[in-house]
């Protein structure tokens, strides 16, 4: 029986955005994914567009959109409303974000002592966005013995002017490694375990006071900010962060770490909670292995299961399976790039063009832009006819051709804008031909 008006395949930002907007519009939506996606790997920030030459994300979107092959050429207009819409939803789940497409892109420190260019970040990273005053000190503070965040190495690197690429920077950078009870003897400590430690109100009060004393000892009465590893609470992040701000004498901000990304998991949880509250279903761990198509329409999605396939009948699919890293595109050993579920035509360089003359060519590698070409409504195109290859499938996120997401820092914006538009297209369709099934309130969120 399982039936859904729409099956969204993929649990990254594009799939989550599409599923949330569809569920809110009253559609019966099921999101399936083979595992957790980019939210668990990323910084938790929302990178909309920061190509060379752009001062704000909005400018970046415009700049990228001048290239007719770029997704922003047709999606650009949706970037601001879609991102704003998503920030509201996430805030409703208790997770604040700061920034917008209109503010200047600024350089903030990374966990290896570099900088990256951002404009929209979780509230806990927001203090890093503000310009540095003349005499301000940056204190990099973290638990001693934690292998994913080395205050001394980070501070050493951030003290170099070149790391800031001419942007304004703190006058001094100091490092503070704080002994937190019981951590020294731990091997294999990861960010998530630390984050859970900060969920415990008593423990974190003590930990934060220790950090505050060490910071005060290092800085004295000078003005400045404190960079902490992004582990200040998971479920209890809002309270933990309020405590951190109250107990530290300097304004703190979080630096995202290597995976597992605590800020990313907070974002995943917030979106998951909203989707479930809106009546949507999320099934992670179900790997789609076949999409059944009859007369150029998808009729069902099949997942691998123990011994027999698990099948969901559906009226539409949002294909948000990701690029090569996410498994939405597969590069074969002989130089072909394929889309494994529907065999959609992939716009990719021929194998000969894979081998460049220059290693790390600043123009980038042509494979970065590989993906599926769509019309402006996100229907995948058949290159032979120039028309939609399949009627009721929409493509969203990293699977879209023409983006160089890492280079342009555009992946989150494209994911959110395309997920948002896919949902709108499908809502418009179902309004024309109502599917006639109310969402089952009985399984709404707990």
């Amino acid at each position: 029986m399982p039936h859904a008006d729409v099956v969204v395949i993929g649990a990254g930002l594009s799939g989550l955005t599409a599923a949330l907007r569809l569920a809110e519009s009253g559609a019966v939506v099921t999101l399936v994914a083979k595992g957790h996606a980019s939210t668990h790997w990323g910084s938790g920030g929302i990178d909309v567009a920061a190509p060379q030459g752009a001062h704000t994300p909005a400018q970046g979107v415009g700049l990228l959109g001048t290239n007719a092959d770029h997704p922003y050429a047709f999606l650009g207009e949706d970037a601001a409303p879609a991102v704003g819409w998503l920030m509201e939803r996430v805030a409703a789940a208790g997770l604040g974000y700061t920034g917008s497409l209109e503010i200047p892109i600024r350089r903030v420190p990374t966990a290896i002592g570099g900088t990256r260019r951002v404009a929209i970040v979780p509230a806990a990273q927001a203090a890093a966005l503000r310009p540095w005053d003349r005499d301000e000190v940056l204190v990099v503070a973290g638990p001693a013995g934690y292998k994913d965040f080395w205050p001394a190495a980070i501070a050493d690197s951030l003290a170099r002017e070149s790391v800031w690429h001419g942007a304004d920077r703190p006058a001094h950078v100091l490092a503070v490694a704080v002994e937190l009870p019981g951590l020294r003897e731990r091997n294999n400590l990861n960010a998530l375990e630390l984050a859970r430690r900060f969920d415990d109100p008593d423990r974190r009060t003590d930990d934060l006071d220790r950090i505050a004393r060490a910071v005060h000892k290092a800085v004295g009465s000078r003005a400045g900010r404190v960079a902490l590893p992004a582990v200040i609470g998971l479920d209890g992040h809002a309270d933990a962060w309020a405590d951190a701000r109250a107990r530290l004498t300097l304004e703190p901000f979080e630096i995202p770490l290597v995976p597992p990304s605590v800020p990313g998991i907070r974002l995943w949880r917030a979106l998951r909670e909203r989707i479930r509250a809106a009546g949507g279903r999320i099934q992670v761990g179900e790997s789609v292995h076949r999409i059944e198509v009859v007369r150029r329409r998808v009729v069902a999605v099949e997942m691998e299961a123990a011994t027999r396939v698990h099948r969901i009948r559906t009226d539409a699919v949002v294909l948000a399976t990701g690029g090569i890293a996410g498994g939405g595109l597969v590069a074969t050993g002989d130089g072909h790039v394929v889309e494994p579920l529907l065999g959609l035509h992939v716009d990719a360089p021929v194998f000969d063009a894979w081998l460049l003359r220059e290693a790390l060519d600043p123009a980038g590698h042509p494979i970065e832009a590989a993906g599926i070409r769509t019309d402006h409504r996100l229907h995948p195109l058949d290159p032979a006819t120039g028309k939609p290859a399949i009627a009721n499938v929409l493509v969203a996120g990293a699977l879209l051709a023409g983006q160089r997401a890492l280079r342009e820092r555009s992946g989150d914006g494209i994911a959110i804008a395309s997920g948002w538009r896919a949902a709108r297209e499908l809502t418009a369709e179902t309004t024309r031909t109502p599917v006639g099934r109310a969402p089952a309130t009985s399984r709404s969120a707990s």
Partner: protein
Amino acid sequence: MTIADLVREASADLDSHVSSSADECLKCNVCNTVCPVLRVTDLFAGPKYEGPQAQRFRMARGQQIQGPSSSAVASPDHSVDYCSGCGWCTTACPAGVKIAEMNNQARARLREGKRPKLRDWGLGQTDLTGSVGVALSPLANFALGNGVVRAVMEATVGVHRKAPLPKFAKSTFASTWKRRGGERGTGKHEVPGPDAAVVYFHGCAANYYEPHVAEAAIEVLRRNGFQTIVPEQVCCGLPLISNGLYDDARGRARTNSDVLADYARRGYRIIGTSTSCTHTFKAEYEEMLDLHDDDTKAVAQATWDICEFLLDLHDQGRLNTDFGELDEDLPYHAPCQLRSHGIGLPALDLFALVPGLRARDMDHDCCGIAGTYGLKREKYAIAMDVGAPLFEKVKATGATAAACDSETCRWQIQSATGVRTRHPVEFLLDAYRAGDRAREHAARA
């Protein structure tokens, strides 16, 4: 043959092995983010370290490990013993690494060549303890309810004194069924074809502890036009697998397959009320026990979880939906074993067909018990911590009953919350009976 073909062939070969799926690991840590045990204790180093990373040490001695018995290398340390085997890591892995399966094999290897602990051996032999317990049920139940006995058990055998041990039934389901002249597939009665009869695998839980679950399942099946065949059967072997006793488990597997494969080939479906037993048939005989014979495959293909089966009937328009109103808030917990089936949440879909039944997914990863894990003295506290948020949620609903597909989870939830926890088919039977009453009432009026 091109190099690309060779690469493809080699990678297809690798993919089929639990052990070498370690090569697919991206080191992304997603498995660690979902591990319920790592969430509450640092005695366990987490699935990433215990699984794909430790696997490199296990494979380092130039030996391609095909199965648990072919390797001399056990594990870098013993912390893998704290894996509960819930399977969340495998489910969440974006790269397809079979982490839980890898850890299970590693646990078995740790125990290889050693005499099993009496406790692990005993917890594995659910059919033996079950038969003895039922035979002596008044005495056994009294003893298991007695604090002194439990304290002695904890000290000597290592089963925690507070661990949720179920009460033995007065007599086994199988003997009741036989006494009633029920069909055991012996040919005494005319057995309908596979369109009108199914094979029922009761497993140990319904046989020794919860015969009412078996009775409910059989009645629900009858109301859908299916007679039930209950052939001779033994424990599926999962408790043995979890306790690292693979050879004993293979014996159970062969005994079951000998009987069930014949039914499977004749087109009968094998229905189970325990998501653990049915998943063992579907996947673990082949994956964990390395059984690849035709009988094992035939049984796997024919096996259905009862809710999966009923939902499939509904899909074909064949489910009897004469449900009466229940007017009940029902907290539901989806057990880990159900997730490993990859069949969604069929019980919730069925509950949605019952008027007035307001079922709600408690949305918690694991109740903690993980089969026999939470019964063990050194793991009881971990199991309770793992399940604590679930227990709070269930209690907060104020409901008088909860639903869960897997027996050990039911016992854990019921014991931790005091809320009576039942199998989904029991609620469906309630709904059918409510329907009967409503119709009788209407007929009289």
